[in-house]
């Protein structure tokens, strides 16, 4: 007899479940179900002026609010043919890196680390591993500080506005940020070491081809690079990225035509950068060693997240120094003249490639919004990985399999508010 048992997922953003199928008491299959309530952002935006778009879409998700905002700002500006000042562009890149730091630190030290330590959450860590928790908190706080200085607030950064920046940061706050970054970079040196072990408790998992934005800066551009070597333009996304509603899930599932299932995220970014560093790979990860540049495995997601945490800290420090070197100017945000246009932007969010597509009429009214998030892109891969995990754990008890599934889903650091939106 088949029985379904549903387990609410914890230590992730948003509302989702793992559904375990049991036949005669034995777990035979698992499914990833996203049950976050639908807010229908794309429909809410239709018919509203372009002014509303960035401030609304950042409310899709708090952890990714900066990157949603920047994606929408860049889209609106490109649609109406406007280039923000160099200073504003630097501040935005800084804010996006701040978002990566905060998101990765939250995931690694607050949400994932309890799995490695065998505790329920950060609350227990405060007594069993206070030093580690504090270190994570310091790194996370630094990511927030960056977003506050550039964006005015860590969640929903209002200072990033259409046409530029509301007000420029003060020199003294950048100087203290520089100090803070220097000391937090120290805190983060141990991150890869902490997060390279632990997940090798999993049985063999599938590997996936991958993709990430390939652009001038690490996190944004107009082109997406695939692990197969192909390059896709953002503008032609409908030809390579499909999305369809799926029975039982509140989030649409992405597909990549006939090319199979791809993943996006930290490992994908590192792969696309051709920077997969074999020496830092953990033990016994033969799949990844054989062809480091063609596939990625969920085993390595946290490790790569930890390495990226360091990269974003370094990048942020570099940007802060650049701002200080070039001197801060008071600037006025540019005014935009709307025109009929269609625009697609891709940008790397902490969880992977984020795509914003808009169409505006000649008065700047948004007539179509289409947002595709990394968690939707990874949804199919999560499903396959879960199924493979259950097969690999055949014979294990229900509790063990269930917690394995939870841990595996967490490796993807899914963001369910984003996935559904």
């Amino acid at each position, binding site marked *: 007899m088949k029985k379904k048992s549903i387990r609410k997922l914890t230590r992730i953003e948003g509302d989702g479940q793992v559904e375990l199928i049991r036949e005669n008491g034995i777990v035979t299959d698992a499914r990833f179900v996203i049950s976050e*309530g639908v807010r*229908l952002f794309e429909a809410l935006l239709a018919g509203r002026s372009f002014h509303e778009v960035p401030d609304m879409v950042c409310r899709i*998700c708090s952890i990714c609010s900066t990157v949603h905002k920047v994606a929408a700002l860049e889209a609106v500006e490109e649609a109406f043919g406007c280039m923000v000042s160099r200073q504003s562009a630097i501040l935005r890149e800084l804010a996006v890196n701040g978002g990566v730091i905060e998101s990765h630190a939250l995931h690694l030290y607050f949400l994932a680390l309890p799995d490695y330590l065998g505790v329920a*959450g950060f*609350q227990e860590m405060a007594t069993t591993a*206070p030093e580690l928790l504090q270190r994570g908190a310091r790194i996370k*706080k630094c990511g927030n500080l960056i977003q506050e200085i550039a964006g005015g607030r860590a969640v929903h950064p209002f200072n990033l506005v259409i046409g530029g920046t509301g*007000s420029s940061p003060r020199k003294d706050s950048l100087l203290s940020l520089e100090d803070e970054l220097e000391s937090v970079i120290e805190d983060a040196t141990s991150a890869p070491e902490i997060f390279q072990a632990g997940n090798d408790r999993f049985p063999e998992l599938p590997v996936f081809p991958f993709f990430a934005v390939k652009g001038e800066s690490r996190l944004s551009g107009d082109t997406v690079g695939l692990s197969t070597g192909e390059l896709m333009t953002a503008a032609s996304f409908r030809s390579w990225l499909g999305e369809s509603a799926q029975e039982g899930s509140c989030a649409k599932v992405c597909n990549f035509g006939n090319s199979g299932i791809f993943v996006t995220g930290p490992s994908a970014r590192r792969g696309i950068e051709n920077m997969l560093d074999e020496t830092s790979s953990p033990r016994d990860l033969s799949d990844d060693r054989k062809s480091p540049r063609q596939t990625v495995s969920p085993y390595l997601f946290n490790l790569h997240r930890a390495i990226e945490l360091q990269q974003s800290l370094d990048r942020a420090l570099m940007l802060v120094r650049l701002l200080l070197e070039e001197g801060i100017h008071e600037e006025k945000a540019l005014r935009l003249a709307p025109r009929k246009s269609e625009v697609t932007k891709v940008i790397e969010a902490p969880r992977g490639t984020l795509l914003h597509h808009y169409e505006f009429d000649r008065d700047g009214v948004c007539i179509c919004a289409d947002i595709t998030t990394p968690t939707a892109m990874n949804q199919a891969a999560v499903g396959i990985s879960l199924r493979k995990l259950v097969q690999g754990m055949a014979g294990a008890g229900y509790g063990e399999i269930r917690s394995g599934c939870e841990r595996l889903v967490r490796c993807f650091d899914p963001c369910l*508010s984003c996935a559904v939106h």
Partner: protein
Amino acid sequence: MKRERVAIAGLTGCSGCQLTLLDCEDELPLLLKNADFDYFPMASSGIALKGEYDAALVEGCLSTQEGLKLLRNLREKSRLLVAFGACAVSGGVTAIRNDVPREELSRIVYGGDAVPGGGFEPAPLASAVKVDFDITGCPPEKADILEFFAGLSAGVLPIPARTFVCADCRARENICLLAEKGELCLGVLTRGGCNARCPSMNVPCEGCRGVAEETNFAEAMAIFSANGFSADRISEKGGRFFREFLHEKKEYQKTDPD
């Protein structure tokens, strides 16, 4: 000292209110000393509501049957139920199209006729249960959250700000974006307490803390339109957090599955 038993839950929202709590990095050790976050799925594995809670902070709007069930359950078990953030207090930014049937909106996004998950119009928590206290803002100010927890230990509720964003703004000696720069600043209608966060950085207030105690919408509309803003533009921006601005006012419906 007794540790307060607290539940932190999220209904439909962006998790920004819960995240702002987790963003109180400096205060977390003290917070944990005084409060036991017994139920906090975003940050901890436990998923069962056990026993009674001194307070439940509920983020997000009410938009699913599952959420309603959880909310009722939390209400029953908690001495204080707190609407945590703009979505919980008023429905938030996602309630701006409650004038259109959900099915119609859903068709634009998903194509089919059924709303995935059976979602209904985003509604404030108070449309379904008794709410004891509001922590406003999108996201709320850290200081407001900490003040609530300090009050919880001391056995009192904080006194909500009864001022305007304008008052905070003037007390910080900012120039007025509405009067002097002709911008669409909603500080004249918005409940204070954020220390005029946005106008202090030269960005007009979008009203995220919700409507002030006593407001004059007619006069504000007159000033905004004298500044050249169309009625549509005003109601779009104003509508993000103020239901009063929406063209079609609609009473929040209580959804009762029973």
